[in-house]
């Protein structure tokens, strides 16, 4: 349903079957489908884990943790069943990539989940898809049923003597459920409230059993790594940042869209070349590099390689691949308000710093945007955010605090320009530029 785009700089790995009819299982098989899992069946679990480790694949949900390393934390012997949980609760504002994977290549997610299960010794995997993505759940349910009908999943998969079940699971609207422990709570039929860590899910997860939780794009990348080899995949990206990823270009761009680019692709090039630059002769004001929780970057900060380590050096994060571009007509107080309004809405309320902090920030920003802010509010918003950092069970509090601190630090003048009952001085700029 969503339009596909392309650009000559793209390196298609995860997206290589997009638009090729691969939801059909026969077509998927023609396009090298289910070859990687057959290969994995002949490998030792440690060899699979090492291959993924060496590929430099890092979590595409946003945290960027080494996937192979995550798998290696699962104990070999466990008294309870082990599980793989595919996180398809894509909800970070700016992010719309897993949607395309589910829509065009659902079997790749199934196959990646299977390989993860073989690597850690799990016999069950769940693919959790957010409730809003109903048409994708229909596609995934059919793909799973087709794979069962062929004997690829279920009892004695591919005649190997091993049993492996993969199931679909659906959400019903909640950003917080994208956090891994809240995701497990939701799958267990509860409110999506995070669990305290440790113990980490790799040790105590679903129903108390060791559980690996990976983002859908991460898992969909795994079959390609097994077929192409760790060295090939690692070589596509930058050191310690293997492969490619789907970047969702959004906001004030000529050619927004989801593009698969090598890790480490230059952000400036991504905006001006791949995304076609800023429309209407406008200038770039700022960029959110990896979903709304990542601190905003100024135009002078965008000459950066889009990999986890390089973006971290700018004080922001690569995050979930959602690149949101703002032109010079955007009021940053308003943009901050919309960002915080989201986190206030989605805070599950479990941890007080997040519940109260996001609410307080929202109220202050509303007051500010209405011209009723006072000077000390500016520092208060920063101070409040600083005190939310690291003081919650899950990273939602941080996800609100980090961008808020950057808004204040980098756009202090815009906050000051709203003081003393002045009407928003930036919204007027939305009129057409003088040519």
């Amino acid at each position, binding site marked *: *349903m*969503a*339009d596909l785009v392309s650009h000559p700089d793209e390196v298609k790995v995860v997206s290589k079957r997009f638009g090729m009819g691969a939801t059909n299982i026969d077509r998927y098989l023609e396009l090298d489908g289910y070859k990687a899992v057959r290969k994995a069946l002949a490998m030792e679990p440690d060899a699979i884990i090492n291959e993924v480790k060496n590929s430099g694949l890092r979590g595409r949900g946003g945290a960027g943790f080494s996937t192979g390393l995550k798998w290696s934390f699962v104990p070999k012997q466990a008294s309870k*069943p082990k599980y793989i949980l595919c996180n398809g609760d*894509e*909800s*970070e*504002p*700016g*992010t*719309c990539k*897993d*949607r395309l994977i589910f829509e065009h290549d659902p079997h790749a997610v199934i196959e990646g989940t299977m390989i993860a299960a073989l690597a850690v010794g799990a016999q069950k995997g*769940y693919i959790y898809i*957010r*409730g*809003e*993505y*109903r*048409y994708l759940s229909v596609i995934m349910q059919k793909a799973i049923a087709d794979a069962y009908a062929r004997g690829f999943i279920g009892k004695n998969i591919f005649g190997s003597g091993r049993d492996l*079940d993969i*199931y679909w*699971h*659906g*959400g*019903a*609207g*909640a*950003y917080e459920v994208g956090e891994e422990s809240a995701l497990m709570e*939701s*799958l*267990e*039929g*509860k*409110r*999506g409230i995070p669990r305290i860590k440790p113990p980490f899910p790799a040790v105590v997860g679903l*129903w108390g059993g060791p559980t690996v939780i990976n983002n859908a794009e991460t898992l969909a990348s795994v079959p390609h790594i097994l077929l192409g080899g760790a060295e090939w995949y690692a070589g596509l990206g930058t050191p310690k940042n293997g492969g490619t990823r789907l970047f*969702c*270009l*959004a*906001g*004030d761009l000529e050619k*927004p*869209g*989801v593009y698969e680019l090598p890790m480490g692709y230059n952000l400036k090039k991504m905006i001006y070349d791949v995304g076609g630059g800023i429309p209407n002769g406008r200038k770039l004001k700022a960029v*959110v590099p990896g979903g*709304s929780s990542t601190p905003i970057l100024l135009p002078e900060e965008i000459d950066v390689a889009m990999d986890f380590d390089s973006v971290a050096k700018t004080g922001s994060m690569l995050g979930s691949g*959602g690149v*949101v571009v*703002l032109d010079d007509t*955007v009021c940053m107080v308003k*943009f901050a308000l*919309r*960002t915080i309004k*989201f986190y206030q*809405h*989605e805070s*599950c309320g479990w941890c007080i710093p997040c519940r109260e902090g996001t609410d307080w920030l929202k109220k202050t920003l509303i007051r500010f945007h209405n011209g009723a802010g006072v000077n000390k509010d500016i520092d208060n918003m920063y101070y409040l955010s600083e005190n939310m950092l690291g003081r919650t069970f899950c990273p939602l509090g941080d996800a609100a605090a980090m961008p808020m601190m950057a808004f204040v630090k980098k756009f202090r003048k815009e906050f000051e320009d709203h003081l003393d009952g002045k009407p928003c001085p930036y919204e007027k700029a939305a009129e057409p530029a003088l040519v």
Partner: protein
Amino acid sequence: MKFSAEFEKRFAEMLTHYPTKRSVLVPTLLYAQDEVGYLSEEVIEEIAQRLELTQLEVSNVASYYSMLVTKPRGKYNVQVCTNIACMLRGGEELLEQCKGRLKIGNKGTTSDGVFSLEEVECIGACSWAPAIQVNYDFHENLDEQKMDAVLESYRKKVTQ
């Protein structure tokens, strides 16, 4: 309480997927809501009984998820995203346009019961913004004219 044969088939199958009955709760509530229109007391009671939970436990979970509602709404729920990517490309204007055309506010329902309106958080259509969902259907890359055409297409569906 009667659900469709499809619902019952899915429900029975899903129960075999998990070590606990309760695990089917969230998707089951959404599928039940799709059939009834909202989570009535009767639905909550039925699901609670099937899963050996109290009604309070079920309501407690239902109240957490933004898509689950306990009051009826219009046949077509128009969900307008105004989160950052959509806001930058006119999402707020679309919401105002819908309010005007449907003559209802956020979370309101038209008197004929055809439309409801809801401002929603990110629906995962950022690269195709501004976007809305009507029930589960996405409508993307919208502008004022396209938005009117979308509303009109649903209005026509009712009269056909």
